[in-house]
């Protein structure tokens, strides 16, 4: 008898997904799938809108990283109208972006993934959440809440609101930063760094105690992909794309406007989320990973001191070669958060940050533009074509979580094979399968701008596909 296990909804991730696990007669796993189960269709319904509306429409793809879409849309607009933003505008946009990295990474570590690490994969589902954390460690919870608030307040200071701000426009931004606002932000930097460092310590202690799990939990080879500084430093806002192979050798370095020459998207019938890959290697050999782990793997250094020290330790985990362990996404995420907090200070202390030269109004209209940014979860691409009146005729979006689709599916399959054993499948086994997805911090609303939501159910299905039993966790 073959059985099928369905986990629905997958929780503590953004969006709608479900997992199905096909079991063999002997109680081992045959194959596990992650289905992303939502589709919204932004690419089509944005046709006919005006290009300058996009920084307001596209953030509604995702309320966790609206700033990524806001900025990628503005950057596509910069290119489409030929309005290069003045330096102060780019600094301000980047500052907003750092606020988002801090809030998103902070929330993910402490509030979404944290309960697995701090309370345990096998803790009862009733308490394995942020409320359980409040009970277990109230001080830490308050710190985590304040860290997220620090990031969100930066966004609000610049863009008027924390979610779906109005700030970036093609050619620059619509508001300069005031001295007192800058000073208020600066005041919060130390506390943010301190909380992130506490997170790093928690991560390291956890890793030490759980080395066995880390080394058998979805460890596999892929390429790695993301923006990079000219000197191979970590870059989250602007730069060329660097793609390395599984051993760390550089395969490509290209400007985002040429992305169609390098990446293509594969479609599977069982998911609304597409699978991007490196075109020259083909599907599925050309799969790669993005996001915190991918970015640290492509970077040789980080241009802020504390994060750079942490990077050195991180790099030693696999002797200088790319780090392949899925669970180290959490570690990489905290190192990036540390960089973002340090970067807030660098940006706020820049001589141009208070400048009012924030908008370039001279146009050199081309009608086509590609915008890119390293969203918290990876490389986000907005590609717009418009007619001579600015009306969009084609919109193509490749979102961060999409790039990791193959990796998440593979991680689910690998973890299911390692931990799920019949006939008595436990909740803790299934939670590990979910944790494989959670490590990637997917944003399924983004990926299914295209997609939305991520549920988990376990259906046990007979060889002919008839449903034998469903395990739900409610």
């Amino acid at each position, binding site marked *: 008898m073959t059985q099928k296990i369905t986990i*629905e909804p997958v*929780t*503590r991730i953004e969006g*709608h997904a479900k997992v*199905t696990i096909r079991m063999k007669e002997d109680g081992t796993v045959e194959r596990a*799938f992650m*289905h992303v*189960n*939502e*589709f*919204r*269709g932004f*690419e*089509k*319904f944005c046709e006919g809108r005006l290009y300058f509306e996009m920084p307001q*429409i596209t*953030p*509604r793809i*995702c*309320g*966790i990283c609206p700033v990524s879409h806001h900025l990628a849309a503005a950057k596509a607009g910069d290119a489409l109208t030929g309005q290069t933003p003045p330096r102060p505008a780019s600094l301000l946009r980047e500052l907003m972006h750092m606020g988002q990295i801090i809030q998103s990474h902070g*929330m993910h570590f402490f*509030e979404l993934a944290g309960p697995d690490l701090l309370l345990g994969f096998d803790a009862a*589902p*009733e308490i*394995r959440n*942020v*409320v359980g954390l*409040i009970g277990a460690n109230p001080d830490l*919870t*308050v710190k985590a*809440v*304040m860290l997220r*608030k620090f990031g969100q307040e930066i966004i609000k200071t610049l863009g008027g*609101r*924390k*979610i*779906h701000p109005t700030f970036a426009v093609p050619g620059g931004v619509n508001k300069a930063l005031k001295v007192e606002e800058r000073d208020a932000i600066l005041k919060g930097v130390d506390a943010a760094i301190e909380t992130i460092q506490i997170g790093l310590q928690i991560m390291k202690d956890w890793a030490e105690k759980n080395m066995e799990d880390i080394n058998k939990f979805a460890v596999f080879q892929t390429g790695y992909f993301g923006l990079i500084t000219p000197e191979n430093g970590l870059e989250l806002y602007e730069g060329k794309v660097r793609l390395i192979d599984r051993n760390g050798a550089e395969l490509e370095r290209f400007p985002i406007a040429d992305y*169609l020459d390098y990446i*293509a*998207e*594969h*479609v*599977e019938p*069982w*998911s*609304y989320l*597409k699978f*991007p890959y490196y075109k020259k290697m083909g599907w599925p050999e050309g799969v790669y990973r993005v996001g915190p782990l991918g970015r640290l793997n492509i970077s040789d250094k980080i241009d802020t001191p504390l994060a750079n020290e942490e990077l050195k330790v991180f790099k030693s985990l696999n002797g200088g070669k790319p780090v392949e362990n899925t669970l180290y996404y959490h570690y990489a995420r905290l190192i990036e958060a540390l960089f973002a907090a340090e970067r807030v200070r660098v940006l706020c202390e820049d001589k141009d940050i208070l400048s009012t030269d924030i908008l370039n109004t001279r146009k050199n209209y081309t009608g086509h533009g590609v915008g890119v940014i390293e969203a918290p979860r990876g490389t986000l691409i907005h*590609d717009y074509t418009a007619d001579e009146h600015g009306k969009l005729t*084609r919109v*193509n979006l490749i979102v961060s979580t999409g790039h990791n689709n193959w990796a998440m599916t593979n991680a689910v399959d690998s973890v299911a094979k390692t931990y799920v054993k019949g006939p008595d499948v436990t909740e803790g086994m299934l*939670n590990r399968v979910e944790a494989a997805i959670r490590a990637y911090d997917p944003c399924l*609303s983004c990926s299914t701008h*295209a997609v939305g*939501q991520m*549920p988990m159910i376990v259906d046990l299905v007979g060889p002919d596909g008839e449903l034998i039993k469903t395990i*739900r*966790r*409610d």
Partner: protein
Amino acid sequence: MAKPKIASDWMCGCAGCHMSLLDMDERILKIAEMADLRSTPITDLKHPDESGVDVGVLEGGINNTASEEVAKMFRKRSKILVALGDCAVFGGVPAMRNFCGVEAALQQAYVDAPSNEPGSQIPNDPELATMTKTRAIHEVVQVDYNVPGCPPDPDVIFYVLSELAQGRKPELKDELLHWH
């Protein structure tokens, strides 16, 4: 007296309304004190208790067969059902899909997009939900409170939840309806 039970879920939205809920910051601890937080997307219980909850909160509209089921289950299991945010109240930005229709949107995303592999097809596995017209929640099930905003302000969400948790009727008027 037992604490009132609150459950929430998201459907065709962007998670922004739930993020705005988290943006009440420290006050979230107060809500956790006042009420018993049951299934939500950020906790690990999957569905509202079969025995029912006092308050069900839904973000997002209804745009496929899976979200239709979520809405119906919430209605059945919640004494009071709250539609949180513009998507839930009237469809919001995702309802723009109704202008071009589901088919055209699927065709563009999975077949015509310039980055797609040649020969790509629209996903159609039986595991997947079927896409429908995008609707507000009240078009599918009865809603007790509509809370507008994209997203509603954290202060408004706090007010609504704390009133409901204390067994009172929230009144959305004046300042509470001002959002930008």
